[in-house]
């Protein structure tokens, strides 16, 4: 039986889709069977970031409204046999998707896949409710900005009301070293302390991420960029490995002291 992980944030544009694509890719690199689900109805993106847009025939709403079988709507990745995408609908009415519909799809996918990664839309409305409905765990993405951290806190509060297997875990995305040093960005320590959930990864703000998603191939495929290593480390932590946080600077720096926040479970 697989496990469903929802990637969520509250605030828009902080990197949910990028994170979903890269974690999915990184897990596939480690030979896990992965299905990505885009639940952002009307604003689908995950297919573009994965470079699979041109293969879409059916989407999640077609599945829910029984215009096709679930298997027919799944799109196989170009690079990995066991990486697939269930795309969001671009045109259909948002209200077509329900929490029950989601739960049904996810439990069916769990039979076949090791990990189901759910890309959540921004906000806390029905789309969010649908995205978290079938999830066993949640990963909350935030950037080191006040408003983003505030929304992450709100989302964590909402997720805690659901009974998931464990509390949500945190990714801090788009860290900029120089701003962190000059004190113009909130400290990683402060964010983790405020949100008081386990940190599962820190990703720097990296041009390569943008370049890669423009090409439709997630940065996690590239062997040596820092963001790629960060995503692959997150995937390893999801698998239960204990991976220390890489030093994101060349000299040993501030990320050393953050290690204590990694509560990696075996």
């Amino acid at each position: 039986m697989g496990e469903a992980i929802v990637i969520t944030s509250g605030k828009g544009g902080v990197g949910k889709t990028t994170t979903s694509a890269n974690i999915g890719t990184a897990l596939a690199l480690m030979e896990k069977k992965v299905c990505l689900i885009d639940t952002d109805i009307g604003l689908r993106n995950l297919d573009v970031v994965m470079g699979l847009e041109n293969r879409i025939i059916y989407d999640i709403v077609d599945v829910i409204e029984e215009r096709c079988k679930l298997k027919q709507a799944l799109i196989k990745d170009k690079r990995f046999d066991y990486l697939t995408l269930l795309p969001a609908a671009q045109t259909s009415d948002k209200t077509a998707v329900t929490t029950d519909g989601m739960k049904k799809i996810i439990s069916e996918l769990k039979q076949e896949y090791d990990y189901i990664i759910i890309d959540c839309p921004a906000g806390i409305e029905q789309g969010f409710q649908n995205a978290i409905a079938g999830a066993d765990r949640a990963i909350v993405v935030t950037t080191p900005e006040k408003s983003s951290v505030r929304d992450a806190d709100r989302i964590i509060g909402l997720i805690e009301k659901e009974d998931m297997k464990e509390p949500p875990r945190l990714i801090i995305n788009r860290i900029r070293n120089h701003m962190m040093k000059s004190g113009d960005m909130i400290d990683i320590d402060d964010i983790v302390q405020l949100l008081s959930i386990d940190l599962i990864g820190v990703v720097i703000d990296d041009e390569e991420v943008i370049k890669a998603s423009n090409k439709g191939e997630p940065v996690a495929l590239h062997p040596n960029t820092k963001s790629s290593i960060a995503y692959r480390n997150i995937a390893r932590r999801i698998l239960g490995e204990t991976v220390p946080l890489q030093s994101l600077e060349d000299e040993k720096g501030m990320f050393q002291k953050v290690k204590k926040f990694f509560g990696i479970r075996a």
Partner: protein
Amino acid sequence: MQDKKQLITIKGTREGLTLFIDELCSFNEAIKELHDKIIKNKPKKDDPIVSVRIKLGNRYLEDDQDKQLTEIINQANGFKIDSIESEVIRKEDALKWKEDSKIKAINRIVRSGQVLEVKGDLLLIGDVNPGGKVVSTGNIYIMGNLYGIAHAGVDGDRNACIVASYMKPTQLRIADYISRAPDYESDGVYMECGLVDEGQDKIIIDRLQVLSNKRKELSRFERRVQNG
């Protein structure tokens, strides 16, 4: 001279008059006699205002009886009611007091968008994050960081206070008073309390030590019993 037992006994003290109303007679009889006595003892035009304390013994007054009594005293110019004291309260009120004076201990984080409301005093073991809010009818004690909003004495108790291990709140509210964080970036404070300062007519933040002087009866129950 008098064949009948006095229903109202009046005693003069340094502070004014104390009226003892017999606790066994009917309320109407007492009111009638009170009326006569008040007219008789009415102060002269230029005399200073006399304050009156009324002792009811084991008599319970309904709200409208209370009003009737107050009207009689007030209608005779020159008297002012200082207090109406009764040895008894209604079971209902007693239970409400008890409810209001309980300390509720709660162990959680109050996150952005969440509101935690309790009757009585709140002891929160955990943080109130920015955007989060805690509300109580009594005092609020936070063993953790207060970043959001705390509203103590929400039913109007201006003597309520707010205590936190660390506070850098967005707003503090006590009864009908509101104070907010300054617009400039400032550090929070450790182990301090917020309370209403009567003199300055606003909420101030001070060291915890001042509580032992300014709020001798931290328990709402004691406070209310003593204030009647």
